[in-house]
């Protein structure tokens, strides 16, 4: 038996139920459209990657209860241009940033709550507004609003295929409780995330090493909708290996480890690979500016794993970790427990120690404490690793989300390969984030992209369906 919501075609069908999907659904419903959301997760694990988020980066001209000062669109633009290295659709980026101005107000209207800037706001207190309780609390508020507005949602329903006639959406093939159903609708909004949880697809860009990647967010974001759209002739943007990825604790679960698995000690450490060799300047810059490159660096090492080693002097200088470090009174003992070649690691650290130059150590900013005569150099926070106990953290690449997606315009319309927009298909969120993020990332942008394009998609779809 199909769920009753499948029987009657809705004005707007929304694939997914994360931040982008909610932004579209609520907007469309408030314009009077009938809305159905289809979500593969069950109720307990609903909310996609959006349930893991902390904050949203949006432009604003003044301080509020949630942000400590102005963050003008121009500054946002400069920041995103820098992190993407210009690898973006500049016009779309500017549009997104300008439209982001009312993101927080709109979210508050939907019952979402922000917290005042506090200690844990990671240096983003001016640019980003932090959700009280984080992404799951945000998603709970969204779901409550949906219920109040009378938006239909079917959980445990995975879209396997999108049925099209030319550039027109006709129906979605949905598997619900083992059975396949055909769900028709007048319009569709694609908001089903990227394909970061699809290791097979990641291998297309990364090769077999993708087997050893951890997925920081939802196991549901397998990219089935994206794949089906590409098969139907939708135009893609971006390349499969571009994504946001960071270095996380190698002991993290395969999926859904979320924010707590981060390892913030790298700048104070010596990082070696399995063979016991160093491979990159650990102290290049402050951690928030470097954590995103370390995922890739680790991915290039043997077995896609590395080990950050510190001594007791550095304990307490960085965010506590979800897993306790591996600990030993000797470096050889530590290497053995970590599974690193012990003689090489001992030599690497001895060489490093010999290269450490005297200086005034300062944990909070680049302090110039560096090494000489060691390859690679460590440029800041270089202190001898000589005070037991020694601690080690295994680190692996944790993928956050992928950038290869569907090309869209300012109206969130999906383009076909003939460079014409599809008739009744819009996209928002991770599935189109690659239009703006060709590479790189600035924390909190994901939420802004999802909300801005989600609302436009919802509005456009509702208007189209009701005409």
């Amino acid at each position, binding site marked *: 038996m199909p769920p009753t919501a499948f029987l009657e075609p809705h004005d707007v069908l929304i694939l997914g139920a994360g931040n982008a999907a909610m932004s579209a659904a609520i907007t469309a419903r408030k314009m009077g459209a009938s809305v159905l959301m289809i979500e593969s997760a069950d109720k*307990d694990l609903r909310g996609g990657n959006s349930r893991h988020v902390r904050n949203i980066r949006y432009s604003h001209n003044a301080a509020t209860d949630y942000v400590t000062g102005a963050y003008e669109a121009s500054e946002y633009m400069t920041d995103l241009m820098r992190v993407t290295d210009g690898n973006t659709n500049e016009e779309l980026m500017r549009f997104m940033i300008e439209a982001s101005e009312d993101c927080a107000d709109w979210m508050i209207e939907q019952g979402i*709550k922000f917290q005042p800037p506090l200690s844990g706001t990671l240096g983003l207190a001016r640019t980003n507004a932090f959700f*009280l*309780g984080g992404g799951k609390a945000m998603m709970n508020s969204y779901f409550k609003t949906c219920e109040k507005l009378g938006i239909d949602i079917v959980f445990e329903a995975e879209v396997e295929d999108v049925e099209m006639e030319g550039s027109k959406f006709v129906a979605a093939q949905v598997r619900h409780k083992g059975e396949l159903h055909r769900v028709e609708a007048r319009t569709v909004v694609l908001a089903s995330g990227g394909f970061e949880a699809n290791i097979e697809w990641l291998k297309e860009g990364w090769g077999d090493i993708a087997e050893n990647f951890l997925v920081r967010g939802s196991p549901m974001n397998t990219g089935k909708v994206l794949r089906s759209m590409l098969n139907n002739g939708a135009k893609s943007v971006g390349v499969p290996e571009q994504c946001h990825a960071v270095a996380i604790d190698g002991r993290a679960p395969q999926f859904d480890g*979320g924010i707590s698995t981060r390892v913030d000690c790298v700048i104070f450490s010596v990082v070696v690979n399995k063979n016991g060799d160093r491979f990159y300047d650990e102290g290049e810059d402050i951690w928030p500016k470097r954590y995103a490159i370390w995922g890739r660096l680790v991915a290039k090492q043997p077995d896609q794993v590395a080990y950050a080693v510190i001594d007791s002097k550095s304990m307490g200088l960085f965010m506590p970790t*979800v897993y306790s470090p591996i600990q030993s009174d000797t470096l050889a003992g530590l290497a053995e427990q970590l599974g690193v070649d012990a003689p090489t690691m001992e030599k690497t650290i001895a060489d490093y120690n010999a290269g450490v130059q005297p200086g005034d150590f300062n944990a909070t900013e680049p302090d110039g404490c560096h090494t000489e005569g060691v390859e690679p150099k460590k440029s800041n926070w270089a202190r001898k690793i000589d005070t037991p106990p020694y601690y080690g953290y295994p680190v692996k690449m944790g993928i956050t989300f992928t950038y290869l997606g569907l090309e869209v315009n300012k109206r969130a319309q999906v383009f076909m390969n003939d460079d014409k927009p599809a008739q009744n298909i819009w996209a928002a969120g991770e599935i189109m984030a690659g239009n703006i993020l060709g590479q790189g990332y600035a924390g909190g942008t994901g939420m802004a992209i999802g909300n801005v394009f989600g609302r436009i998609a919802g509005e456009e779809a509702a208007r189209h369906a009701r005409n």
Partner: protein
Amino acid sequence: MPETETLDEAKRIMQICNACRYCEGYCAVFPAMTKRLNFNDGDVTYLANLCHGCQGCYYACQYAPPHEFAVNVPKTFAKLRGETYRDYAWPGIFKKLFEGNGKWVALIVVALTVIVTGLTYAIQGVDVVSGVYKGEGSFYKVIPHDVIVYVASAPFLFAILAFFVGLMKFWKDIGAKPMDLLHPRALTKALKDAGQMKYMGGGGHGCNYPDDNYSMGRRVAHQFTMWGFLLCFAATSVATVYHYVFGWPAPYDYFSVPVVLGTLGGIGLLIGPPGLLMIKKKADPEPQDTKQHGMDIAFLWLLFLTGLTGLALLALRETSLMGLLLAVHLGIVLGMFVTFPYGKMVHAVYRLGALIRFAHENDVKK
């Protein structure tokens, strides 16, 4: 110190929370947590008693079951608080009263009420008890003033002593110095936070209680209860001063200070506890330690009945029911004082202790 199993679970969870910190906006627990790198037994006992059980962090938790991290802060902390209450009970032989506490409290209160009422009738005779009295000292014609004073003050003073001993044990275990308890700024701040029930606030939006909706219901009902109790207590204190200092015996005029305070307090106790009982009934059991519900329910009924019999006594004090109501009210109040150190009342002691510690930590670390 509570049981190892619960302590270990609390430590496991705090390590996860300390690496996440998304909940820092809800209450005092998470900011207190971030001051620590590791958690010992005393730390988690302190944090558990700082927790007001608003449950916001449970519904917000991306690591709540069925996630493999299985984080449930409110439930774990509630368990730990329950063990705190039991383990710091003094004298130690009464720890057992925390097993099946609801039944014990009910039994003690009923028994004492029956005994006080029975003795009143037995000693004074039906005629005296059901007489109609007016004016000064009329209560004391049924039960002499000295008897009331001794019967009520002995268990009350004993309760204060037991609270103090328990608090000092708790205070030592959480690693605080005795004099920190009297730090003027910390004490003022803690009393203010308790008076406003600030941390039943979910960052200003209310608790996620009885379910995942933000609601001020629990905070409001708790305020009626707490302030109701405190006003009743103030009424009794003023009356005692009137009696001994000014030599003015009860009953007092309807618009006298003790009667106004007592009436307001009694009304608070008629509104607050039933409110809390009602939302408790609807509450999602997941973030709670349901084993403690008996204790909570017994305490709420006790407060309600104290308010109810007190107000009834006031309203009917010039009728033939006065004697009976006086005996019953005295019996219930006696039961309340006797069970104070061995029931839910102790939460106020350790909560206030934890709030003072929190205020002190913030004050010093500035």
